[in-house]
């Protein structure tokens, strides 16, 4: 008999369920309990970079928006550096930017929204530069394990064309499901990023 390599096994995932807001966004559940709450606003007054809004809907296999979804994002700062000790790229940190936020979709419209800054490009594996992108993680009732995806920017066509992760998707037609469309509304820059969980134009999800 072969010897076993004894690593522990990762704890199994379970759905976040319909009442995920109670734990992760209690105000959305209908009550206030904590003095300080996590939020969907990543950029404060001191944060460097171009202010942007990211918004969209998460849509199920029937075309219906999820109205109980919770979305988290993780991104680099305007200079393309993550606020984490494992990122030692020689670029400035921004002490006014954690890089993480959490949003719930609206219970009526299904819209989620983040207020952040546009990230700079980050060095990928083997020194290949990745196009500016925002990492997404999606949980909800009916989703047994959080879905990972990335949002890229429609006004970064040249960088997107060279991005090592987008180029890993052999079905070119699927790459565009990760590109958010830029527009301007009332003087604000808005990127629209709809996520289709299942069916036609299904968003690419990653096993990271």
């Amino acid at each position, binding site marked *: 008999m072969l010897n076993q390599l004894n*690593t*522990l*096994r*990762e*704890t*199994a*995932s*379970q*759905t976040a*369920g*319909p*009442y*995920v*807001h*109670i*734990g*992760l966004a*209690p105000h959305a*559940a*209908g*009550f206030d*309990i*904590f003095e*300080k709450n996590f939020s969907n606003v990543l950029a404060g007054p001191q944060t460097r970079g171009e202010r942007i809004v990211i918004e969209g809907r998460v849509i199920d296999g029937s075309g219906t928006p999820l109205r*109980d979804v919770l979305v988290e994002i*993780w991104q*680099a700062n305007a200079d393309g550096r*993550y*606020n984490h000790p*494992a*990122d*030692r*790229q020689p670029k400035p940190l921004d002490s006014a930017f*954690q890089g*993480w936020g959490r949003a719930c979709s609206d219970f009526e419209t299904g819209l989620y929204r983040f207020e952040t800054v546009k990230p700079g490009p*980050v*060095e*990928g*594996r*083997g*020194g290949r530069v*990745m196009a500016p992108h925002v*990492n997404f993680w999606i*949980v909800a*009732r*009916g*989703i*047994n394990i*959080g*879905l990972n995806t990335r949002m890229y920017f429609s006004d970064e066509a040249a960088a997107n064309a060279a991005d090592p*992760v987008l180029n890993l998707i052999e079905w070119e037609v*699927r790459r565009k499901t990760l590109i958010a469309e830029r527009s301007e509304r009332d003087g604000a820059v808005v990127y629209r990023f709809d996520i289709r*969980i*299942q*069916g036609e134009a*299904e968003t*690419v999800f*990653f*096993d*990271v």
Partner: protein
Amino acid sequence: MTEQDHEYLPRNPAVHPPAFAPDYKTSVLRSPKNALISLQQSLSEVTGPVFDRAMLGPKDNDLILNYAKDGLPVGERIVVHGFVRDEFGRPVPDALVEVWQANAGGRYRHKKDQYIAPIDPNFGGCGRMMTDASGYYFFRTIKPGPYPWRNRINDWRPSHIHFSIAGSGWAQRLITQMYFEGDPLIAHDPILRSIRDDEAVRGLIAPLDRAHGIPLDSLAYRFDIVLRGARATLFENRLQGGS
């Protein structure tokens, strides 16, 4: 070239429920049809949010007191505690652990919950904490009751507490549920049973911990959590600490 000094072990799909698990009906329209695309991790996946303890209040991990208005909540007083480790057994310090649950009667404090069991005016049902240097966490709460849900017409969830864990890297992000030893509803739950591996199911069932109960006050349950293991990235870069 900047060095990426570590990466996480690939996720073992056998320990997780599949996205499409038709006995859990909501998963049918909320699961991707396409296979996930596997990535070699970059800085985007091995880094993750760093949380500040100053975000937390003194009662954030005490669900018995953190919403008490004019008295104590009704129900079984319990302590839940354990260690957050990675797959190599190393402690995960400074992990953000968030929990939420129903009250003793199985009712959630949520505007969408219409179950006839009453709200407890002294119970909110959420808490949060960060692990210490050894990966340890603990909180105090009321044992949640089971509740019915619209799946099959007579489905009931076993008593459970929802857990969200943010470790040191984005790839470790995890949401799960903790169940209680001996609950007969565990055998009939389509959400827990969407996990096919029996050992993985057992890992979500917290044993009664007689040694850590508080006499004449509270019982205790022990729930250890394992996140993905970090290893040095070999070959492409130098080993961490190497020259």
